[in-house]
């Protein structure tokens, strides 16, 4: 493989790779679609890791006073479960869809900065690998995904015993933050500048819109957590006193910074899934999205209001009645735009011709489950009673209904929906339905009991609980449910494997889709569009296929009206896109440097923990990579 890649020696550093197949082609790719696939596969592997961690936690909690794993192991696993699912699963799975479909939906040939896009992925992968090496280098992070100081300055240089668990967490999140920030800037520029002619903002698909909102949230939220992380890092590595009360530091500072990032982060996790659901429901209802503008603006409203609710994570801290009242109000009223979205989705289905394909099941599951998470969320705003709920399993129930019943259901729906576009083959419907129902059942069995456990006083983050508290039964039910979820994920993997060999060929537009990605071949050619489409309205591709009269009745458009421009000729049977004279379309060349440069970050981080020599090597790679990047020729 490598032999065909190695260039004639002519100054290796200033040469661009040419491999189009094999491992090197993936390492050097700058194609947004391939990067999207890399994100998706990596995030799915991390999903399995986070899932195994969850199963171990559930086994430990299945019975009272269980000794399946130790307190220390339990603390490492729940910390890594939360950190993994948020930063290494839901964010990159969303990024997989952003990368693959955002350019397709706006009619672009790639993102604005293709090499930077690859760089984001490799930095993300490096950060994930770095964090997981902690298991082999002294122990995984054990202080919770929320990393509260001053607990997490324990084991720092000021402590009696130096431990590195939370060093991995802090440095890992800093690296992942770099990946997300770079990617967010890239996608913002892409959306603002690279829309096809006629694709005004209010003609963009809702998934693209939600992507747009999320990138803004990322750009503004990540600097806040980064500041907090550096403060914690300095406390740990250099003995500063940002959070050490003995020397005048303030633990509440961490909480404000963390949640000022942490709450927008919740919307960073859920808005992409809302966007996906807003794509799926219209297609399988065969109706346009009800109140497009309202859905878009409620997404924006959620994005804005998400900045004003952070202290609802801190109602038990003692901020005083005025602050608590203010944040209670903002927390209640952020439910309004969320509720509006739910009713608009229902109205989209109302009067439709509903086809319950697997993506549709996941989308409806999303609406049903997210509603429960939203309602329990409103009860958290009742501050006096929130002091009973906070840090109990009631909260754990709430956010799993939002992030699993919401985000994960939405992302699985997206996977089933777009799988045929990405691979050219349809995932099996019967297995898909089994996958959905097993997951739906397992999910509710796992997380519904948490409501009861929480209200009956079971505190979170406890590695065990005594007998006689009335918690035994529901804990056992929950553990059974968790294994059912594991079965459903195995069914999904079976479906994927089976589809590789026996999958039904999808064709360009298997669902009778509405947005531009369905107008091109499956999988799309490297250059996406033979000719950049010109857009005239929302759901432009749909309206190419169907004409609508003034009463909203549809009829198929005049024969041959589908498709865009000259590609009709190509659809007429003149070979595939590779040979249709498209060599003239200039696509960015692959590059070694994004992946190479990314290697520098984990080396720097390991160096900060273990050895200054590694810092030097990491810095040299980073610097060398950036120079090579800047100096490499624009094309081979």
């Amino acid at each position, binding site marked *: 493989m490598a032999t065909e890649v190695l260039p004639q020696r002519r100054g290796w550093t200033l040469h661009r790779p040419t491999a189009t197949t094999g491992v090197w082609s993936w390492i050097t790719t700058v194609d947004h679609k391939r990067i999207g696939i890399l994100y998706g596969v990596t995030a799915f592997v991390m999903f399995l890791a986070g899932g195994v961690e969850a199963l171990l936690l559930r086994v430990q909690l299945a019975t009272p006073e269980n000794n399946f794993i130790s307190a220390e192991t339990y603390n490492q696993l729940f910390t890594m479960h939360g950190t993994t699912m948020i930063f290494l699963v839901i964010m990159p799975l969303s990024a997989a869809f952003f990368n693959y479909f955002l350019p397709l939906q706006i009619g672009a040939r790639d993102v604005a900065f293709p090499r930077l896009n690859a760089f984001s992925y490799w930095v993300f992968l490096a950060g994930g690998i770095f964090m997981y090496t902690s298991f082999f280098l002294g122990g995984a992070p054990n202080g919770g995904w929320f990393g509260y100081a*001053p607990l997490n300055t324990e084991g720092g240089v000021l402590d009696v015993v130096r431990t590195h668990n939370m060093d991995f967490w802090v440095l890992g999140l800093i690296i992942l933050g770099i990946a997300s920030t770079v990617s967010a800037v890239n996608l913002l520029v892409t959306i603002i500048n690279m829309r096809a002619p006629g694709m005004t903002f209010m003609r963009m698909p809702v998934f693209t819109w939600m992507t747009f909102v999320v990138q803004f949230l990322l750009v503004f939220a990540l600097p806040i957590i980064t500041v907090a992380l550096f403060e914690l890092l300095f406390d740990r590595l250099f003995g500063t006193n940002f959070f050490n009360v003995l020397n005048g530091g303030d633990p509440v500072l961490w909480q404000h910074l963390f949640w000022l990032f942490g709450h927008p982060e919740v919307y960073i996790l859920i808005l992409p899934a809302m966007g996906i659901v807003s794509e799926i429901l219209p297609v399988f209802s065969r109706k346009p999205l009800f109140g497009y503008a309202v859905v878009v603006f409620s997404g924006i409203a959620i994005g804005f209001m998400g900045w004003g609710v952070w202290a609802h994570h801190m109602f038990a801290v003692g901020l005083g009645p005025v602050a608590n009242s203010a944040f209670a109000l903002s927390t209640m009223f952020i439910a309004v735009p969320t509720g509006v979205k739910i009713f608009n989705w229902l109205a989209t289905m109302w009067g439709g011709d509903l086809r319950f394909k697997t993506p549709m099941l996941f989308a409806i599951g999303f609406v049903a489950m997210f509603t429960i998470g939203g309602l329990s969320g409103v009860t958290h705003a009742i501050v006096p009673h929130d002091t009973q709920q906070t840090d109990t399993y009631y909260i754990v129930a709430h956010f799993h209904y939002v992030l699993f019943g919401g985000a994960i259901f939405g992302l699985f729906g997206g996977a089933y929906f777009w799988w045929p576009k990405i691979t050219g083959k349809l995932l099996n419907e019967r297995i898909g339905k089994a996958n959905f129902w097993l997951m739906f059942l397992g999910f509710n069995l796992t997380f519904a009991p948490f409501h009861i456990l929480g209200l009956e006083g079971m*505190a979170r983050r406890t590695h065990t609980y005594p007998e006689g508290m009335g918690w035994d039964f529901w804990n056992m039910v929950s553990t059974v449910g968790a294994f059912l979820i594991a079965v459903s994920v195995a069914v999904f993997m079976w479906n994927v494997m089976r589809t590789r060999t026996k999958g039904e060929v999808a064709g360009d537009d298997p669902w009778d889709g509405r947005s531009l990605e369905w107008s091109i071949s499956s999988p799309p050619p490297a250059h996406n569009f033979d000719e950049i489409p010109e857009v005239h309205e929302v759901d432009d591709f749909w309206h190419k296929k169907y004409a609508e009269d003034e009463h909203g009745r549809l009829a198929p458009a005049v024969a041959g009206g589908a498709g865009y421009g000259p590609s009709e000729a190509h659809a007429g049977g003149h070979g595939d896109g590779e040979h249709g004279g498209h060599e003239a379309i200039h696509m960015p060349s692959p590059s070694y440097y994004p992946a190479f440069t990314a290697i520098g970050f984990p080396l720097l981080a390991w160096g900060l923990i273990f050895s200054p020599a590694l810092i030097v090597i990491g810095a040299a790679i980073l610097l060398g990579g950036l120079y090579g990047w800047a100096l490499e020729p624009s094309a081979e």
Partner: protein
Amino acid sequence: MLLALVLLLFTACTESAPQSTLEPEGPVARQQDDLFRPVFWIATAVFVFVEGLILLIVVKFRHREGRDAIPTQVHGNKRLELLWTIIPTVILAGIAVPTIGAIFNLSREPDPATRLDVTIIAHQWWWEVEYPEERVITANEIHIPTGRPVYFRLESRNQGAEIPVIHSFWVPKLGGKQDVVPGRIVHLTYEAEQPGTYLGQCAEFCGISHAYMRLRMIAHTPEDFEAWLENEGSRAATPDSGLAQRGFELFQSFPGGSCMACHAINGLDGAAARIGPDLTHFGSRETFAGAIADLTPEELRRWLDDPASVKPGAKMPDYGLSDEEIEALVAYLLSLE
């Protein structure tokens, strides 16, 4: 889901859940519960409405064989959308008013003339309890009188250079939790109506033995409480014979250390350290080690033999005491009633 919610109410009434938030036993917890219940029912109504609507839509508008006509293309309806913006807003405003009233109501300090002041100092991983006026110090088991507001002053401290961490003080049947933030002094009011034992625990993740930082609130009638307080305020008895006397000597000095380096006993000269729990009336407690172990000779033996095996991360070292020494110390400690 619906089933789960019904079961929620069902279990709340039947199963014994000593730490349940759903069975308030004092005015603070009751006021919080009174706020939650109507909101819970409103949420249930919305839940039934939305999920019912989903089921209705799924049945009514499902694709039927042989139907090929594309449904009418409805793009939106301003009036409807306005309606489902305004109705939730009104409902939420209705919830907001009593919520804010209760926030301010519950933040009021109880009358200093009638309340009992108790100071709680959270450590990793146990609670030090101090009755400042009565000059009584105990641990993990907090005795209070019924019918009288108890005003807790909460602090977090660790020993020496150890940086104190955040804990959260919580007895669900008496009220919601209050985080104990190092460097700040915060307050919380609880009141019990009936004598009894109310379970609680630390609710903020505070390290390896977070699950083992439990506590008990023991409410007495005012007379019983006074009697308890009087006993607690008395000096510890000094055993003058037998195994307990041997334990008394070991307590002051055993090969390799002294219990007095960390533990105080009122009535024993030189035992005034406040690193570990005060042991003056240790023998009268129900539990020890963060209220996780019953105070029995077996449990106490296990603890003295290797504290960290009972409670991971316990700050008390394993002194390698011999069985004979452990027996003597157990006899002495249990004699401290």
